[in-house]
């Protein structure tokens, strides 16, 4: 299966960039948890990266076309797991997201992104050439909607929306009419107030419950947004130095090792560090876009696009939120935030992207 010459087509630059981002992530997790009860979290992250590397290699070695053949199986498996989360999952931070396993907790929604990308890529590859018909889009929509609803029910709206971006990315690349895209956009704008009202109700509900029992949310979402911006701004051009940040170290930012890892990174490494990290992410994304272009077949291009859509959306949203410019949502920063499933699934995704690139000359 693995031909020796493929070895020379592995995208080593991409691997270096990914490694650098993982290293920065581990450093920031170490820094943000050095005081307090989670001080060994970075070790966990290192284990997760090790597992991720293994999974990465597996995803690289097996031909993506073989994997796509079995996409339905993966898809069904992940849907079962997502349903399992709702039935047997463990709760953390008010949401049911994990399936407890002997040594770790599995977060199926992270892997759902990969399975959806694989399934949609296969589906749009097999559908007609040119631009996908409404029927195609409807089927693609159903494929997406099942995991979307299951994840949204956890609730994990951030990840659910991330799954939607996969459909959007692949169908765009598959030649979806721009007019249709425009209609979808208008629909989204029209639907926003309705969704907003719905969200506002939830928000008010949580405000009231917080008011009655401050333990649920002692410091509110608005507070996090303000503190995130203060963290970033106070980092200045050069940063406060590794483990010298005050906002993250003194817990003004909640879960700084997770959702707000980039805020603390901005605080400790300053604008210079931010530019370096943004550069690394940009390189990874652009390199993946190039991979989509270089892909031997449409399946490869769609697969890369699907994985990349989810990744890019999460990176953009999380970094925007880190600067206090977006509402606080529990979306991790891929490669940097602590979280085993996230790191393993992300590395697996890049394994697939490199898989496509590596096999661009094969038949």
């Amino acid at each position: 299966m693995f031909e020796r010459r493929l070895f020379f087509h592995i995208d080593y630059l991409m691997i270096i960039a990914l490694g650098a981002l993982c290293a920065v992530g581990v450093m920031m997790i170490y820094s943000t948890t050095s005081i307090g009860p989670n001080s060994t979290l970075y070790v966990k992250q290192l284990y997760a990266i090790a597992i991720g590397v293994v999974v990465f290699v597996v995803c690289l070695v097996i031909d993506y076309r073989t994997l796509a053949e079995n996409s339905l199986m993966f898809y069904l498996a992940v849907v079962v797991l997502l349903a399992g989360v709702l039935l047997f999952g463990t709760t953390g931070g008010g949401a049911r997201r994990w399936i407890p396993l002997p040594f770790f907790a599995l977060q199926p929604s992270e892997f759902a992104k990969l399975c959806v990308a694989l399934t949609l890529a296969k589906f749009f590859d097999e559908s007609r050439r040119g631009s996908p018909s409404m029927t195609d889009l409807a089927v693609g929509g159903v494929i997406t909607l099942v995991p979307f609803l299951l994840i949204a029910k956890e609730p994990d709206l951030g990840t659910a929306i991330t799954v939607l971006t996969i459909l959007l990315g692949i169908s765009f690349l598959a030649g979806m009419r721009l007019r249709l895209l425009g209609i979808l956009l208008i629909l989204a704008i029209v639907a926003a107030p309705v969704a907003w009202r719905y969200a506002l109700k939830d928000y008010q509900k949580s405000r009231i419950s917080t008011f009655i029992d401050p333990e649920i949310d002692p410091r509110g979402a608005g507070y996090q947004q303000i503190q995130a911006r203060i963290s970033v701004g106070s980092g200045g051009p050069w940063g406060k130095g590794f483990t010298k940040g005050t906002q993250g170290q003194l817990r003004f930012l909640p879960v700084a090792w997770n959702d707000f890892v980039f805020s603390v990174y901005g605080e400790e490494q300053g604008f210079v560090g931010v530019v370096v990290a943004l550069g690394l992410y940009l390189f990874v994304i652009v390199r993946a876009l190039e991979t989509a272009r270089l892909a031997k077949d449409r399946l490869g291009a769609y697969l890369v696009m699907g994985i990349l859509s989810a990744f890019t959306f999460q990176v953009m949203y999380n970094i925007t939120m880190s600067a206090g410019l977006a509402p606080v949502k529990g979306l991790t920063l891929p490669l940097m935030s602590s979280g085993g499933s996230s790191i393993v699934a992300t590395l697996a995704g890049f394994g697939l992207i490199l898989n496509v690139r590596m096999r661009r000359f094969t038949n």
Partner: protein
Amino acid sequence: MLGLAPSDLSSVTVSEDRRKLVTRLTVLWYLVIVMFVALAMAFWYFQVVQYEKFREVAENNHQRTLGLRAPRGVMFDRHGKILVENRDSFVISVVREHSRDMDRTIRLLAQVVGLDEASVREVVRRHRGQPGYQPIPIVEDATLAQVAAVTAHRLDTELPEVVVERVPTRRYPTDAMAAHLFGYVGEVTEGQLTREGYRSGDVVGQAGFEKVYNKLLMGVDGARRVVVNSLGREIRTIDEVPPSEGRRVQLTIDYDVQRATEEGFKGFGYAGAAVVLDPRTGELLSYVSLPAYDPNTFAAGIDRATWSALNTDALKPLQDRAIQGRYSPGSTFKMAVAAAALEEGIITPDFTVHCTGSADFYGRLFHCWKLGGHGTMDLRHAIEQSCDVYFYTIGKMVGVDKINKWATALGLGVKSGIDLPNEVTGLVPSTEWKRTKLHENWYPGETISVAIGQGQVSVTPVSMAVYMAALANGGRRVTPHLVKAVDEGNGWKSVATPESAGTAPFKPETMAAIHDGLWMVVNAAGTGGSARMVGYDVSGKTGTAQVISLEGAKALKGRTDLDLRDNGWFVFFAPRDNPEIAGVVFTEHGEHGTNASLISRHILETYFAKKEGRPLPTFKPPPPPAPKPAVVVPTTGAGQ
């Protein structure tokens, strides 16, 4: 490597589809670049353009500057005994800046410390002008239970914006001793803030010695910068400027003499005032005004109820009678009249008057206090017996303006210059005074009342002490003062005695005659026998002043019998030759000078016992006398 220009298309066949895909990828390529540039610009804006602002906010987030209140200078008595010192107390304050919902904070805090919510709100409102990072003291001198309750809630992260600080607080003697002398401290008022350059929240002297010498006693507050976490818990100290304590001050007061004076008053249950000093220098040995208040209640932040109770009390405990009370001197004024008559050459000490118990002046009958009369009296005996007719007679001969001149020379009717705030002046009338102030001519008949210290004459107790010191000194007036030495940080430095307020050129014969009379008052057949101390040649004079004549008949309404009883005086110095202690005891409604002279003797006994190393006496008030028959005094005559 990053390029996606259509020109470097691969060797794959260019189909319609392929071109479309590449175009769309190129669009995405630009989109991603634009979004990343936008993100970088946002970070540039926050981290470079607005860096200073956010740096400051982050610093305020995790740094708190805690004021370290400087202990005020300790006050010692003239022998080094501690009079006023400091103790640690706890203050519970709110840092508004760290509260996200002041309403909730106030409600919760009021509940936790057991205070009325409205009053907490009022305190916060009063401090609305100060910066948000400055703690607003809600509970001064908190109890341990309150501190424990707040600490427990802080641990629960419920009240991170509430801080408990340990601050030095004034400790005054527990029994309100010398309260009017020490005064009290309190938080700086808004008026003082603008006038005197204090900082908001400073604790400054608000009355008495604390007020006059505030700059000396106050010290310089320190500060401690600490790092706190998001729960407001202190992580570590960044730096600390220790507070520097206020100057230690040694007062001229003698603790035991002060105590003896108050014991005397309390033995009788009298209100009143006493001022005892060293006539050679003006150093005050004892300074009393009663009733008093407990300055400790002010030190810990007085509550409104206590404050209004003090203000509305009919006995006026907040009034410092020694320097703010004006009273008729009664017979204690007679020495001034005698001095005027002798100095003006109108009489000699041998001039005699025959007292039949009353005499006619300007067509009106004036009575002597002794119904049957004293018989023939010379000046010395007239002082000894306090014969009113004698003084009516010489007063008429001298005239009010000459009396005014010599009484003023002895320190009456003018400020003493004591280093305590808000001293008032008494009044020794003159024809000019009546013309300018009342626009009336002086009636010669008024002089007759003035001659025995009644009528328009009024004095403050402190001016009577100066008067007695001047008589003891042969005419040299001293300025009463309270500071003996100050420790500027490098050992005690004596403070120069304030300049004498002047020496009147009294003839030695004048003083000799008056001294003889004063000695006879105590040691012969006079009215002040109660103050006699064998071997110490106490010289003094009693006085009784009618309240009714001063306050007027209108004041009768609503007054109890107690309020109408006469005021009693005893003025003294000792020993007769080379006096070293002089003073005045004024008992409000003390009926006559005898009880005042008993208090005076206790003061003198204590003073001399201490000086000679004997055990200090204890005060035993005499048993209350049998009710005496009411004596109706028809006119202004009074005094014993």
